[in-house]
């Protein structure tokens, strides 16, 4: 841990009392925003995956038949035939009372009238979203009732999936932009540091110091500022993400329940300060070496 402490005489070579702590706060703000963007991206990716898992194999067979007796008989036959197919995990006709409840906002109490011709709805869960299995279910249903229509839930919710994917990509782009901005800030800080400590560096060079030795002084300071500032910003951002996650959990929304971070997501977010500190260290080293390379 001597890398972190100032007991090491090498760490005292640059007068750190002359440098401000602004770098630390800049990094805190940048990594706060980066962590929020990364959390958004990861949660959207997680929601998109959950949506995929939930809807990929979910179908509804709609059977339109004015004659209630024939409709019910056909529905029962379809349920039996579909149940016999492979890759089908569940088949159930939607309860008519439940259907009436769903229609009540549009039809009022008339929806409860037994004389009102309503289609039969059969929910089918497949073990996967394999198109061949969907085709088999469609064939089985249409063999009983040629007018039967099979709706894939994934198809109806595909705009939602596209939206989630778009947000995920947008968040990834934001993280990338923040990484580039951090690199630019680090390079500016390294250049400012070189100017500020020019006299000391000149003396070190005259005493036989190598460029790598000088670069090490800067990369350590900048990596430390990035890590400490980043840890602060990331901690605050993670707290906010946790609070938002808790609030989303209490809404009881099936869609929002998918917008949750699992353990690997939290670990990844927690590693952001370390990743950025490494990136800052490499950028500072490259920047300082390039600048020193232009001197004698």
């Amino acid at each position, binding site marked *: 841990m001597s890398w972190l402490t100032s007991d090491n*005489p*090498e760490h*005292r*070579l640059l*007068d750190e*009392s*002359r440098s401000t702590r602004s770098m630390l706060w800049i990094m805190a703000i940048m990594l706060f925003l980066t962590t929020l963007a990364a959390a958004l991206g990861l949660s959207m990716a997680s929601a998109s995956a959950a949506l995929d898992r939930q809807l990929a194999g979910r179908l509804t067979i709609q059977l339109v038949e004015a004659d209630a007796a024939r409709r019910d008989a056909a529905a029962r036959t379809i349920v039996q035939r579909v149940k016999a197919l492979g890759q089908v995990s569940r088949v159930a006709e939607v309860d008519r009372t439940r259907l009436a409840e769903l229609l009540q906002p549009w039809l009022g109490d008339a929806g409860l009238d037994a004389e009102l011709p309503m289609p039969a709805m059969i929910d089918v869960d497949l073990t996967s979203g394999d198109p061949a299995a969907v085709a088999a279910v469609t064939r089985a249903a249409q063999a009983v009732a040629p007018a039967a229509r099979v709706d894939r839930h994934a198809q109806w919710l595909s705009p939602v999936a596209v939206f989630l994917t778009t947000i995920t990509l947008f968040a990834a782009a934001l993280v990338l932009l923040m990484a580039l901005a951090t690199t630019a800030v680090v390079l500016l800080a390294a250049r400012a540091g070189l100017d500020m400590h020019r*006299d*000391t560096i*000149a*003396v*070190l*060079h*005259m*005493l*036989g*110091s*190598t*460029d790598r*030795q000088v670069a090490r002084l800067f990369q350590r300071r900048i990596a430390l500022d990035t890590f400490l500032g980043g840890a602060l910003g990331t901690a605050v951002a993670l707290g906010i993400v946790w609070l938002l996650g808790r609030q989303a959990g209490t809404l009881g929304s099936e869609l929002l329940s998918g917008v949750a971070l699992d353990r690997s997501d939290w670990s990844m977010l927690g590693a952001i300060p370390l990743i950025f500190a490494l990136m800052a260290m490499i950028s500072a080293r490259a920047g300082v070496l390039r600048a020193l*390379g232009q001197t*004698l």
Partner: protein
Amino acid sequence: MANIVQFENVGLRYGTGAETLSDVSFTLSAGSFYFVTGASGAGKTSLLKLLYLAQRPTRGIVRLFGEDAGALPRNRLPGFRRRIGVVFQDFRLVPHLSAFDNIALPLRVAGMPESEIEGPVREMLAWVNLKDRGNAKPPTLSGGEQQRIAIARAVINRPEVLVADEPTGNVDPDMAERLLHLFDSLNRLGTTVVVATHDFQLINRIPDARMMRIERGRLSDPTGALRHPPGSPQGQAPA
């Protein structure tokens, strides 16, 4: 004695200006003591900068330790610089480091373990009569004390060549003599010493030393055989 430094028709120009040094040729023997004299602006400091590798010549050849310094790749310069001790006219001590840490700098730069640094640094502090001032920061030291710290820093690595630019310019005559004594004792240990000065009284203190005189960027006495400028009373600078 072997030649440790060799200049062959060296010219130095800063930017697009006129040449600061022109056609400078001389050799320095290992273990000798040299004075470089000349009026202010004559080119003494520029000559020393070429010696301690702060500049590359714009023409000619500067040969250090048998190698063409002008052709050395950048990554080999630190190794050469560690063989040369430099005492700057303005000391160039690192102000936020203690006297101890300033003297220890060349050893740390050379990668010496911390456990092996304290002994030599304490020895150097005693050698320059500042053993009680190890923790003092340069701004709290007098000019003479700072100069001695700068000398201690320049010699702690036992350099083969010691280059000093007007080392007595900022100190009183007593201190100047003591500093010169330090250089002389170092020279007796085998270090080649090159001191730039225009103080002829100082030059007379080291009778065995050779003298190189620079006038308007040209060396007027490259052999060093001419102890004093012609026509000037011994020990007096020409008017």
